[in-house]
């Protein structure tokens, strides 16, 4: 997972591998997932894979991040709030995070953390 995260900074910012991986570890630590750094894809849960995808997207230069149907990406996700809280923790650069989901899941997003646009 760590290699996967570090790749973006290695390629686009030409950071040495160790330095890029240190950034990755730091991001994983923010959401208490540093233990998955050396795991392979099949050793991670869908939630962990989702966070790695988000961290990787945060590492990219693009200012807007689209997350499409998180309830489909994360298996057995009952509540989105804990995920949204972790997204806020990870979003140090204040990027625009847009979640695209079906109207049937609308009730899950009601709260302070989300602006719902139909």
């Amino acid at each position, binding site marked *: 997972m760590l*290699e996967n995260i*570090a*790749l*973006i900074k*290695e*390629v*686009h910012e*030409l*950071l*040495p*591998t160790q330095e*890029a991986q240190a950034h990755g570890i730091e991001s994983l630590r923010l959401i208490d997932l540093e233990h998955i750094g050396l795991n392979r894809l099949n050793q991670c849960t869908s939630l962990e894979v989702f966070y790695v995808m988000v961290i*990787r997207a945060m590492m*990219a230069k693009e200012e807007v991040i689209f997350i499409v149907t998180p309830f489909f990406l994360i298996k057995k996700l009952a509540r989105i709030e804990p995920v949204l809280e972790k997204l806020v923790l990870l979003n140090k650069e204040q990027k625009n995070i847009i979640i695209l989901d079906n109207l049937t899941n609308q009730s899950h997003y009601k709260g302070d953390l989300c602006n719902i646009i139909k």
Partner: protein
Amino acid sequence: MILKFFEHIGQKTTDFFLSIYEAMQFTALCLIHMVQPKSYNPAMRMVLIKQIYFTAVGIIPLFIMMAFLFGSVIIGVVIALATQYNLQSQIGSIIVTFALNEFSPFFTALLISLRSGTAVNTEIAVMNVNKELNTLKEYKIDLIDYLFLPRILSGIVSVTSLSILFAIIMLGSGYIFTLFYMGMDLHTYQTLLANAVGVDNLLILLLKSVAFGFVTMLIPIYSGLKTANAYTAIPISVLNGMVKLFIAIFFIEVLSLVLQSL
């Protein structure tokens, strides 16, 4: 009926030349990236180190064993035949030409193709089917720099270094056979080889190894990239890639023989 027959032939011919053109274009693109310093970013260097480890270092115990087994048998047969046809005076150049110019790079290329060529073909085909290549493109990661170039360079480095190792083992085995067949001592054997080895032998070994290493990785990569969008297409891709690779290896071998005979 006849028109359809000619249309079919025409279509096949056009497809054939188009695929050759595409393959050449891909080869040229890889070569251009190979000489560009910006291709060598930290991620690429890390993949390159890993690839060299998997391709060249991981195989060493098996390779040494195979080199002893096949190298000894082949060099034994060559020395026995040379003795039978009273070619003892030429034995040095026969061993050097056979071990350095012909057998070492060829056998190494075959072994690396079977072990790493298939692995690379499958890996790229799986990544292609799983759309991992598309994800990398989305993140603006150059596939040639990150995926293909390290594999091609590792192929070149691995085949060249293992060919040299194979040649050394083969020449070592040659001493055992010359000792038994001709009663030759080590010093005489060393002098014989030193006199027989020329710069041209080393150059041929290096050039052939580089060419073999290049195609050993390039063709499986290209074949993996051309995989249709289904898991069932992966074995077909590996099969096609390996057939093309073996044809390319034999083509290089024949071409080198033709060039040497000029």
